[in-house]
């Protein structure tokens, strides 16, 4: 098992005095306060019929009154009958594209006058990001990716630099979707650590109000630039009720009892053939997944040939040549590649990083073009544990 120190972010006790409330104008003030401290604020915003995480400058850009409906191979935005700013579940893309960009230059090379190769590291100063609206499942995903990219034996410089200065405003989830199963994975709907601030949106009155929990001294400091009220007991109880309500509305469940062992002893289960007949090996799931980290290192030569760059791009284990070694590809079939993805995500991830790779966000279900549901696949294997293709029993 790999070394699995997580980045510990000091969490102050959520006691009376460290919980405040804000009105909607307070969100604007919060964004302004962050700008004044040099942060680029990334927040959900409506784009192309879905919700993306983009830089925002005012709270006006948040998805006001927007909700979503999600199911296997199904994602639609819908109008809510209130003015919630965070009334949806997960977006098609995750926060990982801002911490672990889809393409990064690792280093460059060129030849000097004598033909000698010279290498230079290319580390642009990292942006200072503040993520506004990180759901519990997404925060869990960031903490999981930390184990792969930040606290492993070789921290990734780009990820580590962006992560170090990252300011996180979690949103305690009040709007799970039909594909959600964070409660099964133990990752939500409420975040208890890992954030600088956490907000819960209360929708009892015509204008939303926000209960704000302080998570770190940095969070405390940012809130000093924002006018707020102390939260009442009733406010705090209402905030807890939001996530308790969400926990009862999960779209799906995943039975995680001894899941790694279950998958490990069913590597030849006939269900893999069944799913392979449906799977297009398109890799949408790996693209959407907030914990997937696989990448390709490619060579990008300048047009004039005077220099070249080593670029890391997102990759997917579903690509046919992902496992190519001289002479051929190890995982030649969709069957073996789907099996690799699922048994890694739910199984071998534990041995490698000490945690599951799945946070129960359900993106892979919504964004699979044929609606393959990882919870259903696991359930079928569990209920037919030990089945072999062609077995007479």
């Amino acid at each position: 098992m790999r070394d699995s120190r997580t980045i510990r972010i000091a969490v102050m006790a959520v006691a009376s005095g460290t919980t405040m409330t804000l009105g909607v104008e307070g969100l604007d003030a919060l964004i302004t306060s962050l700008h004044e401290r040099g942060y680029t604020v990334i927040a959900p915003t409506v784009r192309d019929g879905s919700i993306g995480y983009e830089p925002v400058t005012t709270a006006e850009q948040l998805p006001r009154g927007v909700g979503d409906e999600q199911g296997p191979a199904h994602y639609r935005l819908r109008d809510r009958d209130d003015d919630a700013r965070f009334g949806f579940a997960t977006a098609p893309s995750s926060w990982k594209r801002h911490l672990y960009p889809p393409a990064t230059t690792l280093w460059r090379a060129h030849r000097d006058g004598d033909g000698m190769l010279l290498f230079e590291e290319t580390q642009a100063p990292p942006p200072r990001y503040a993520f506004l609206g990180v759901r519990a499942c997404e925060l869990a995903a960031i903490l999981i990716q930390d184990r792969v990219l930040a606290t492993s034996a070789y921290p990734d410089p780009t990820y580590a630099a962006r992560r170090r200065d990252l300011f996180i405003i979690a949103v305690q989830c009040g709007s799970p979707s039909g594909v959600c199963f964070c409660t099964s994975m133990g990752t939500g709907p409420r975040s208890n650590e890992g954030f600088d601030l956490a907000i819960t949106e209360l929708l009892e009155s015509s204008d939303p109000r926000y209960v704000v929990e302080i998570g770190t001294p940095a969070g405390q400091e940012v809130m000093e630039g924002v006018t707020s009220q102390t939260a009442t007991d009733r406010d705090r109880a209402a905030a807890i009720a939001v996530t308790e309500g969400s926990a009862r509305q999960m779209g799906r469940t995943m039975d995680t009892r001894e899941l790694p062992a279950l998958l490990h002893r069913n590597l030849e289960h006939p269900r893999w053939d069944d799913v392979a007949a449906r799977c297009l090996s398109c890799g949408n799931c790996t693209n959407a997944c907030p914990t997937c980290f696989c990448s390709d290192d490619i060579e990008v030569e300048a047009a004039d040939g005077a220099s070249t760059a080593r670029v890391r791009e997102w990759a997917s284990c579903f690509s046919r040549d992902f496992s190519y070694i001289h002479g051929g590809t190890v995982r030649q079939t969709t069957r073996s590649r789907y099996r690799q993805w699922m048994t890694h995500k739910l199984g071998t991830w534990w041995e490698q990083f000490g945690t599951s790779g799945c946070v129960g966000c359900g993106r892979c279900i919504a964004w699979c073009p044929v609606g393959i549901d990882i919870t259903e696949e696991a359930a079928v294997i569990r209920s037919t544990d030990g089945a072999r293709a062609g077995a007479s029993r």
Partner: protein
Amino acid sequence: MAAELAARAPLTPVTHRVVGRRDETADVVTLLLEATDGSRLRYAAGQFNMLYAYAVGEVAISISANPVGDGPIAHTVRNVGTVSRALCELHPGDSLGLRGPFGSDWGLDSATGRDLVIVAGGIGLAPLRSVITQVISQREHFGDVEIVIGTRTPEELAFKEEVDAWRERKDLSVHVTVDRATPGWRGTVGVVTTVLPRVHCDPEAVALICGPEVMMRFTALALLERGMQAANIRVSMERNMQCAVAQCGHCQLGSVFVCADGPVLTWERVEPLMAVRQL
């Protein structure tokens, strides 16, 4: 088995110059490399470096000579792809990039005082040459040393002069066998497994095997039949390697990252992984 190295490997290549070149066979070249900045990291036999050919790419190549000491680092490259072909075209004076060292080593430290059975198949002799040369330099630390080398034909045997020198030694038992004899060959003909019945195998001996996966599989089985233990049999695995630091994901074999948990792994750990097709 991961070597505890003083310094971590750099992530950006370090410029190295080719200071020596030897054509081993028609498609195999050994390159001797020195860093242009004079640096020299500590390497252990069994580890590999990522070698970079300008504007072509990187490839994982095992260290192929005694890694202990201050001399140039040797890598033996077989021309099987675009990057390896570019490396095989380098000559003294040319430069390339080197990142490393990475991976687990053959674990000679844990084999002190024990017998060694070293079985090399084809180009697998290159990574094992590093440990054989190290064993020779510390011969008194080990018991009986049996070396079995399998190759396709006599012409395709790499390091011919060195293998002959090893055969001359009284303190090593060296068996060379070919899959296909060519006229004039007076030696053994047959796969390496047919040689093993004549090799001394102590139950506490340590076996080091390197070659194509099929060869390693059958060799390990034959050694188990000879009474060796799965925990004492070590193989060197190979998978697609790009980052070499357990982050790109390509080299995974079950839960194993071959670049970091391997490439040297015990048969005990590898056998169940090898048993699953297309894992």
